[in-house]
C-alpha cells in the first residue's frame, strides 16, 4: 500500500467519523461546550496520527532515545528497569533527636533517600531564642542551629550510604557546611557525599518567602555553593531549581516550567559571569517539580521541561558534557490539592499525582501524607504515603518499560503545546531583563497571584470540581489522630543554644566570625569561611547576622 492511498484512506475515514460525531452531538451534547487543561490548553475530542511526530526524522529531533538528546524520553537509557526512583519523604519536626528517630523509622520501612525539613527559624537564619522564632521552633521542620544538631540529626545514619536532600535556601551555605562537618565527624570524605541543597533563592522571592538577603548578594551565595561543590563535593547537587512552590502558590503547569527554567538560566549566567565553565557546574544542577492533578498535562510538563533544558544548555550556553544537558528532577505531589474535607480522598489524589511523576520520568519522589491539610504527618500517615510509591513501583508494572506513554498522539501533542507556551513566558521574562529583574519587579509574583485567584474563582463557581469540597459533600464527624509537636520544644531548644554558647571555645569562635565578616566584605568564595565558623560552633543565627550586617535584608515591595 502506498503512502498516498493510506493517507487518503485515513483522511476520508476521519471525515466520516467526524460527521458521525456531529449527528451524535445533535442528539446528545457533550458534558461541556469547551474542554481545556488547567493551563488553558484546549483539549480536542480526539488525537490521531496528525498530532504525533510525522516522520522518523521528526521523532529523532523531538524525542530521541532515552538517555539521548533532547532527553524527552528520559535521562537514562534504561530508566526504572535499571534502578527505581529514589523514594524520598520530606520529614522533620521538633529537635534533631526526634527527627533522627523518624528518619530511621522511614529507612527501616524501605525509604531510599532522606529529605530534611527545617523549621522556619532555621530557614530564615534565626536561632531558637530569637524573638521572631516565637512559636515557630520545630513546627514545620526540625530545628538545627549548630553542627551539634546536625551531628545528632544523622546519628547512626552512615552519610556515605544515604543520599540527603536539604530544603534550605537563604542559609543553604551554612547548613551545607554543617552537613560537611558532620560527615567529617563520621570519618566520611566529602567526595563520597551524595545529596542536594535546594539553594534556589529566586523562587523564595516569587513564592515561598524564606528569603533573608536582597537578590544580588543572595545570587552570590548561590554561585559560591555551585563553585565550591564542583571543586570539593563532586557528587553533590549544589542546587535544586524548584518550580514546586511557585506551583503551590498558584502557577499553572506552563508557568511552573517557564519560571523554573528562567531561574535556572539566571543561575547559569551568574556562574558563567563568575568565570566558571558551563560544564563545570551544569552537571550538578538538579530540579524540583510539582506533580499535580491533571494527569496528562503533568506528564507532558515533565517531558517538555527535559527537552527545553537540553536545548537551552546546548544552544544557549554551548554545553558539551551530556550530563550538563540532562534535566534530573525530584517531584512531590501537590499539597495544595489536598483537602481537609474527607481526608481519605487525599490518598487517591496522591496516587494519581505520583503515577504522573513516575510516567514523567522523575529521579526521586515525595508523596504527601493525607492528613497534611490539618497538621504534619503522623508516623502512620507518613508510612501510607511511602507505601503508595512502593505499590506503584512494585505492583503496577509501570516501571518496567521506559517512557511507556511516548507515541501517544495526545501526550506528544500536549508535550509540544506545553513547550511552546512555556517558551513564550521565557521570552517575556527575557524582555523584562531576566529572572532576577522579573522577581525584583514583581512580574512573576503577579502572574502567580492571578492564576491562583482564577483557580479559586473556578472552584467557587463550580466550574472546577473538588470532590468533597464543592461536590459530593458529606457531613463529617469524629476525630482524626494528628501529630502534636511538643509545645515545650521552643524552650528546650533555646536552652540548648544558650548552653552551646557558654561551652564552646570563645577565641576560636570570635576569630572564625571575624574572618567570615572580612570574607563577606570581599568577593572571595564564602564557603571556606562558613565551614570554619561552623567548625567553631557558630550558630546559623550568628552566621546569618554577620551576613545581614554586610548584605542588608530584603524588604519586599507591595506588588
Amino acid at each position, binding site marked *: 500500500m502506498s503512502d498516498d492511498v493510506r493517507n487518503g484512506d485515513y483522511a476520508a475515514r476521519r471525515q466520516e467519523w467526524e460527521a458521525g460525531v456531529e449527528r451524535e452531538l445533535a442528539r446528545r451534547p457533550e458534558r461541556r461546550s469547551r474542554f481545556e487543561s488547567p493551563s488553558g490548553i484546549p483539549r480536542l475530542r480526539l488525537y490521531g496520527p496528525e498530532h504525533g511526530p510525522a516522520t522518523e526524522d521528526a521523532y529523532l529531533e523531538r524525542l530521541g532515545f532515552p538517555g539521548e538528546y533532547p532527553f524527552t524520553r528520559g535521562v537514562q537509557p534504561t530508566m526504572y528497569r535499571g534502578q527505581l526512583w529514589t523514594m524520598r519523604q520530606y520529614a522533620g519536626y521538633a529537635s534533631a533527636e526526634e527527627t533522627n528517630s523518624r528518619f530511621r523509622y522511614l529507612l527501616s520501612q524501605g525509604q531510599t533517600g532522606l529529605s530534611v525539613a527545617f523549621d522556619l527559624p532555621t530557614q530564615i537564619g534565626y536561632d531558637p531564642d530569637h524573638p521572631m522564632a516565637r*512559636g515557630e521552633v520545630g513546627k514545620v521542620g526540625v530545628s538545627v542551629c549548630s553542627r551539634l544538631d546536625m551531628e545528632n540529626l544523622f546519628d547512626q545514619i552512615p552519610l556515605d550510604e544515604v543520599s540527603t536532600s536539604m530544603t534550605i535556601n537563604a542559609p543553604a551555605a551554612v547548613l551545607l557546611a554543617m552537613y560537611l562537618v558532620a560527615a567529617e565527624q563520621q570519618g566520611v570524605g566529602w567526595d563520597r557525599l551524595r545529596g542536594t541543597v535546594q539553594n534556589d533563592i529566586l523562587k*523564595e522571592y516569587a513564592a515561598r518567602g524564606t528569603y533573608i538577603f536582597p537578590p544580588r548578594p543572595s545570587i552570590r551565595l548561590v554561585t559560591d555553593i555551585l563553585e565550591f561543590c564542583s571543586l570539593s563535593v563532586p557528587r553533590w547537587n549544589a542546587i535544586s531549581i524548584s518550580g514546586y512552590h511557585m506551583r503551590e502558590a498558584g502557577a499553572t503547569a506552563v508557568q511552573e516550567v517557564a519560571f523554573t527554567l528562567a531561574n535556572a538560566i539566571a543561575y547559569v549566567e551568574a556562574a558563567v559571569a563568575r568565570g566558571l565553565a558551563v560544564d563545570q557546574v551544569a552537571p550538578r544542577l538538579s530540579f524540583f517539580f510539582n506533580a499535580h492533578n491533571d494527569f496528562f498535562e503533568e506528564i507532558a510538563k515533565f517531558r517538555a521541561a527535559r527537552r527545553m533544558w537540553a536545548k537551552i544548555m546546548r544552544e544557549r550556553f554551548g554545553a558539551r558534557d551530556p550530563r550538563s544537558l540532562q534535566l534530573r528532577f525530584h517531584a512531590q505531589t501537590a499539597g*495544595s490539592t489536598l483537602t481537609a474535607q474527607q481526608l481519605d480522598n487525599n490518598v487517591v489524589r496522591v496516587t494519581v499525582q505520583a503515577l504522573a511523576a513516575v510516567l514523567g520520568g522523575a529521579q526521586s519522589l515525595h508523596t504527601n501524607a493525607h492528613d497534611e491539610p*490539618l497538621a504534619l504527618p503522623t508516623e502512620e500517615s507518613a508510612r501510607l504515603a511511602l507505601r503508595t510509591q512502593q505499590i506503584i513501583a512494585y505492583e503496577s508494572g509501570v516501571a518496567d518499560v521506559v517512557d511507556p506513554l511516548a507515541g501517544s498522539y495526545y501526550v506528544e501533542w500536549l508535550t509540544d503545546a506545553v513547550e511552546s507556551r512555556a517558551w513564550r513566558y521565557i521570552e517575556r521574562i527575557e524582555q523584562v531583563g531576566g529572572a532576577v529583574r522579573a522577581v525584583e519587579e514583581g512580574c512573576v509574583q503577579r502572574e502567580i497571584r492571578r492564576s491562583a485567584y482564577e483557580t479559586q474563582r473556578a472552584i467557587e463557581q463550580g466550574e472546577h470540581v473538588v470532590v468533597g469540597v464543592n461536590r459530593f459533600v458529606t457531613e463529617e464527624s469524629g476525630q482524626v489522630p494528628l501529630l502534636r509537636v511538643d509545645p515545650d520544644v521552643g524552650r528546650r531548644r533555646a536552652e540548648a543554644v544558650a548552653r552551646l554558647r557558654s561551652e564552646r571555645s570563645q577565641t576560636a569562635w570570635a576569630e572564625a566570625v571575624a574572618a567570615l565578616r572580612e570574607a563577606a566584605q570581599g568577593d572571595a568564595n564564602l564557603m571556606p569561611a562558613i565551614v570554619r565558623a561552623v567548625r567553631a560552633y557558630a550558630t546559623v543565627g550568628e552566621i546569618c547576622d554577620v551576613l545581614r550586617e554586610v548584605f542588608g535584608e530584603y524588604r519586599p515591595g*507591595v506588588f
Partner: protein
Amino acid sequence: MVQPIRVLVAKPGLDGHDRGALVIAQGLRDQGMEVIYSGLRQTPEQIVQTAIEEDVACIGLSSLSGAHMEWFPEVARLLRERGADDVLLIGGGVIPPDDAERLKQLGIAEVFGPGTSIQQVADFIRQHVRAAGPACQLAPVATASVRVSGVDHVAVAVRDIAAAIEQYGRVLGARCLGVEEVPDQGVRVAFLSLGGTVVELVEPTAPDSPVARFLDRRGPGLHHIAYAVDDVDQALAVARAAGARVIDERPRPGARGKRIAFLHPGGLGGVLTELCQRSAGEGAGES
C-alpha cells in the same frame, strides 16, 4: 454613601505561605471591601498598630506553619489592651479542629480551614463586623479635656516633596525651614513657614509606610492637624479618658525635636490628629 468595610489581612510569624491570604484579600476586594495586606513576617504589635492606624473593622490572620496558637491569641490580647477589641478578629490556615475551638475561646471570632470559599468569609465579616457609621452611644462625660494652646502645624501628604516645596513657595510665598528624614515613620518631611502658620509636607520613603498607604488610598491631601500642648503625656491621658482612640500608647519623638502622639481620626471628624509638645526654649508661634 455606605462606607466600605475595611479589612486587614495579615501574616503573623515567619510563615511564607501567602496564597490563601492573597486570594482572600483579592476576593474581599471584589466583594466591595477595602483590604490592606500586611505582607509577610509581621509581629502582633505591628498588626495591631496597622489595624488601628488604618481604622479597620476586621483583621484576618493567616498561618500555615503551626504557630497559630502563639500568634493569634496575642493579637486578640493586644487589641483588648489597646481598646480596639471592637475589631472583628478572624483566622485561617492549617489549623487542627481542637486548636480552632481553643482559638474561639481566646477571642478569635471564627477560624476558616482549607476549602473555605471567599463568599463564606465575606458573609461572616458582613454579619459580624461592628456597625458602620457613627456609634449610637453617648461618649462618657469627660472630667477634663485636652488644653490646646494653638495649632502647631497642618500636615499635607505629597508624593514629591521637592515639587510641593516649589509650588508652596511660588504660589503662597512659603519659606522652607528645613527637610528631614524620620526613618522609623518611613517619611521625609519639610516644614514651611507662611504667615504665622507652619505647614508640614510629608513624603513617604518606604512603600509600606502609613503615609504611602494613605496616598495609595486617598491621593495627596490633608494628612493631619497637629495641636500644640504643654504636656503631651498628660494630654494623651486626658484624651484617652475623654473617649478618644489613641494610636500611640506613649508619646514618641517627632520631627524638630518635639514629643508627639497621634489620636485616631474616628471621633475627630475623620481627621488624624497629632498632639505636639514644643521643645523647651521654643517660643510660641515662632516655629
